[in-house]
Each structure stands twice: as C-alpha cells, then as structure tokens.
C-alpha cells in the first residue's frame, strides 16, 4: 500500500452497461473496488446489484442473451479482453452464491476440487494442507475435521455456506464476490459468516451484495447504492448511512422504499 488515504484499487469498472436481450439491466456503472476493504452493494430487489456482481468474474457469460459493454479491469487488465482466460479469471475472482451449493461430494473433495483442477497442490500432503488451511480460514475446521470424508451436503445450511467459502478460498483468489451469502441462513449462522468476512478482510478484496442494510453497515467499509440499474451513490459506509448525499439513497436507507 502506497498511500493510506487512497487504498490500492483492485478492480475497476468504467461505464459498464449490461443488457439481457432487450432489457437494459445496468446503465453506465463506474466503480472502483479496493484491495483492503469490504465493499457492499445495496439496493432494492431488481436494482441490478447481483447482475453487476456477476460481471466482475464473467459469470454472465453463461447466459446466452446477456451482453456486457464498458471496461472492467482486474489489476489494470481488462477482464473482457480476448487475452483474458475466463477460467483463470474465475480462479482469481472467486464467488460465493446466495444459496449454499456444495458439490454432492465429501467435504474434503469440495475444498480440494478447485486446487486440483488448477494443479495448485499436486502432492497429496500439499493438498491436505491446502484443505486444512482453507477450512480453518473459513472457520469450519474444528467442526468437520473428524468427518472430512462425509458428504458436504449433510452439513447444516450455515456450515454449507462456510464450506462454500472454504472452497472459494482454496484456489487462493485475489477477490471474493459474495452474492447475498446470508439470505438463506438463520441469524446465528449469519453472525458467523459476518465474523468470517471481518477475518478475511485485507487478505482478499471482498465484494458483498446484500439487501440487509444493517449487514452492509456491519461488515463493509465502502457501500454502493444501486437503484434501477444506476449506481446512485458510492462512498465510505459510515457516510452513506449517516450522511447520504443523494435524496434517493436517503429515502432507501430510511425505509421509504425497498
């Protein structure tokens, strides 16, 4: 880090438009995601925050009618340029989904899958270490260390979501995108995930989509407010919540609509 007041930009978007067929879902969003902080995307349902998140690791590529315009860079490299390998991009920009989606394989295999396909741990002992370290960072090791070869789908919802985080961590990503990671979880499991986000901050650039404003206030340092496909306001989380500059942000935060 060169300057404390201006943390290093990890990902940056400039005038990004996303179309689903004839629908214009994202309208000219420009945003910088920095390395050191947790960035939260908030906004009412259907405002495009999840859509925009999915452009950051090109998950929208799998939707045939989706079209992305504008520039998105990771460490200055355009991720939509032909030179960028999408498989490597998704390894560098990992993702955690709304609903916990472990593979129907053992806990060990869930975590080991990513490193294996990328050849990150060719020796069994290396792989064991990667699996243990990932599960430890995801705060799941103590709960599952004696049953690594049980099915990952047999865990509780909160444990499954932490397993998914461990799976994302295991490929040693630079950025982790989280798409409403707690919306399917109970409050206790949610608290554990939030605590985990705090611990992971700094090691990985984290972007989290949430429709729970309290959660955004608790876990993030930067907050972006989306509305109807526009980025309305982006700034330091405490400013957004206490002193929003835009009328629409204020209305949303005070519960006028949502």
């Amino acid at each position, binding site marked *: 880090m060169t300057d404390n007041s201006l943390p290093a930009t990890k990902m940056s978007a400039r005038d990004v438009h996303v179309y689903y067929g004839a629908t214009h879902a994202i309208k000219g969003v420009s945003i910088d995601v920095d390395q050191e902080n947790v960035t939260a995307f908030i906004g009412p349902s259907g405002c495009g925050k999840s859509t925009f998140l999915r452009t950051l690791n090109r998950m929208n590529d799998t939707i045939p009618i989706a079209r992305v315009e504008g520039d998105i860079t990771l460490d200055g490299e355009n991720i939509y340029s032909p030179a960028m390998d999408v498989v490597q991009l998704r*390894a560098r920009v990992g993702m955690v989904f709304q609903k916990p*989606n472990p593979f129907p394989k053992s806990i060990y295999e869930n975590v080991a899958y990513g490193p294996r*396909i990328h050849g990150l741990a060719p020796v069994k002992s290396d792989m064991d270490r990667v699996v243990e370290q990932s599960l430890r960072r995801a705060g799941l090791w103590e709960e599952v260390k004696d049953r690594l070869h049980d099915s990952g789908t047999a865990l509780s919802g909160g444990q499954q979501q932490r397993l998914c985080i461990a799976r994302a961590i295991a490929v040693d990503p630079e950025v982790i995108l989280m798409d409403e990671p707690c919306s399917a979880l109970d409050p206790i499991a949610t608290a554990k995930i939030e605590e985990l986000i705090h611990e992971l901050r700094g090691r990985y650039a984290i972007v989290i989509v949430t429709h729970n404003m309290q959660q955004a206030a608790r876990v993030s340092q930067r907050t972006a407010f989306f509305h109807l496909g526009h980025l309305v306001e982006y700034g330091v989380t405490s400013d957004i919540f206490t002193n929003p500059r835009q009328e629409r942000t204020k209305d949303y935060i005070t519960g006028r609509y949502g």
Partner: protein
Amino acid sequence: MSSTLVPEVPVTNGREPAERAPTDWKTHAMQSRIRKRYAAERRFRLLGLGAVALSAAFLVFLLGTMLINGAGGFVRTEIALPLDFPALSLDVEREQLAQRGADLALAGAGLQNAVGVAAVSAFGDEGEDYLADNAWLTVREAIKDDPSILDRRVTIAVPASSRIHLAATDDAEPAIEAAAARLNAAGALTRGFNWSFLTGSDSTDPTSAGIWGALKGSLLTMAVTLALAFPIGVLSAIYLEEYAPKNRWTDLIEVSINNLAAVPSIIFGLLGLAVFLGTFNMPRSAPIVGGLTLALMIMPVIVIAGRNAIKAVPPSIRDAALGVGASRVQVVFHHVLPLALPGILTGTIIGMARALGETAPLLMIGMRAFIGSAPEDLASPATVLPVQIFLWSDQVSSGFVEKTSAAIIVLLVFLLAMNALAIYLRNRFETRW
C-alpha cells in the same frame, strides 16, 4: 389522502349487511356429503387395487404358461441303447482315436449306420426311428472319452427322437405311444437336462435344436447397439443441453429427435436394409448390421432421457463449479454427468430392453434366415432370440412348441440379467460420495 387500494365497505341503506348464519356441521346434508366423500375414496381405492390385481394376474398367467410349457424344452428323453461293438465291427484304428482326426475316422468307419443297426437289433424294425438324428454323436463322444468300450458290450444313454420324447411326456399317435410304453416298461427311458439346448444352434430336428446360436447373436447385436447408441446418444444429449445455442435449428433438431423416438421399428429396418445393405454392401444377417439398425432405433430414446437427466441437475452445481474456475468440459464431466448418470442409465435400460425384444427391423435385414451354427464374429450370419422365437413358433413340427417357450424363458432371463446389471450400476453411481 385517497386510498384506492382499500376496497370500499359496501353500505346498504346505511345499515350493516345481514350477519351470516353460523355454519351447522351436523345437518343431514352435511352428513350425507361426508358419506359420499368416503364412498368416493373407497371406490377409487378399489379401482386402483383392481387394476393392479388384473395386471398382476396377467403377468402370473403369462409367466406360468411360459414356465409350464417351456420347462419341457430344457428336458430331453434318453434311451438306453445297448451297443455290442465287437459284433458291429467298426473299422477304426485305435491310435487314430487319440488324434484330432478322431471325428472323421469314426464317421468314415460308418458309426452312424452302426448305431442304427444297434437300435434295430435292440428295439425292432422301427428302432432307428426311436433315436434322435444326432444320437450317434453321443456315442461318438463316448468312444472318444474311453476307446476301450470298442472291445465290449456297453449301454449308452442317447437322446430319443422327438416323437418318443412327446409320447413319453405328452400325447402322440397310438403306435408311437405304444412303443414308448414298451420302452418305458423295459426301463430303457430316462429323462435328463438337455444341455444341448443351451449349447446348440437352430436345427430342423426339435431334439437337437438349441438356443446358443440365437443367444450369442443377441449378445453380439446388443454389444454393437450399446457401443454405438450409448456414447453417441449421451454426447448428443450433452451437446444439445450444455453447448448448443437455443435457436430455430436446435428446436428443429429437438422436434426431430422426439419424432424419431416414436417411429415404428420396421421403418428402421427398411432404413437399415436400404443404407447398410444396399448402399454400404454390408453382410446380410450379420450382428453388426442388426446392431447398427437397433442403435439408430434406440438413440433417440437415450438422447431424450439423457437431456432430461442433464436438465434435472441443479444449475447451482454448474455455478459452483464455474465459480472455482472449472472449464465447461470440466463442469460437464466432473459434475453434471456423474449426477445425470443414473437417469441416463435408466433411459439406456429402457432402450436396450426395447432393442433386445425387437423382431421387425431385424427381419428386414435378413436375420430371419435359418442359421445352423453360432455366429463367430460380428460379420457372420446370425439370428437373435426374438427372431428365433418367431421362427420356431412358425414350425409345423410339434416338438418346437416347448422349444419356443423355452426360448422365451431364455430371452426373459437375459432381459432380467441385463436390467439387474443396469440397476446395480445405477445404484453404484448414485451413492458415490
């Protein structure tokens, strides 16, 4: 503030609307409605039970008839034939019997005639008719096993002719009934398991007709069908489901595949005749052509089942794999295919079972010919079990009736074995983690 969302309370002449009377659940009308509902439930349950019972009864009747009729096909009647070899004076060198030319030497020495002579001297003028046409082969094997019997009198159990077999087990003409009764009284008739039925091939003589030729033909044909239809069907399903763009062309392909699955099988036979035999000049009656034709027939079934199974894999699993940086091929082969495999296998079983029982298309490509020996490879002439059943059921000789039933039993056992294997595989893949 005008609140158009809240409906206006209906006001009638400034008074409240009349209060609704409390519902009385005990009235006669209510009670009879309950009774009617119960009766309807009972009726429906009985109807369902009746339907199941009826189909079970048909199945039991079918299997029972097959087993009763077919059991006889696995049994043969044997006659104890006394053979006085020194008197028959076979002209054969002992050292020849140890060599590979033994069969030829014994045939050249007139063994077939000698067995006939022995039968005449033992059972009278018609004695030769009591033995099956291939009875002398049993004697030949006995001599090869122990050449020393050529120096003495022995009694060998040889297969009886189809007429004696029928007379001994069932009704026949009075003359032959009497002969069978006489033989039986003399203790010459015994019954044994008909191994030659399982090891032999088609024959014009029901006693020596066997199922092995048709069974091997079916095995080879099924192997070709599976080897072609399974990979091509599964790859098509994967491509259409995971890679193909959704446009007018893929819609057209989908409709065509659905229609192909419903095309009558004889049309596929005509296609096989025109394309494989006509254009490519492939051998007639060969398992490879039968397999190709049946593969064309069941491919649509496998594609449809495969697409449905692939469609049923939750998209979240694909997202998860893509999210850790798996390529499309890795997503398909590491995650989608293992989860879809049980469903794909179910479709394949249905297709293969249909192919195994198929007769019509194979008739078109010449598999209805009389084939007297088991096929040696994929290109040699063969027949298959259902066609063999069809051919035997058409025979005038009454000895073929029980052979037909016995062949049906073999076909059903083959079918059950195939299904059991597939179910075993399916369960194995379902519990892989």
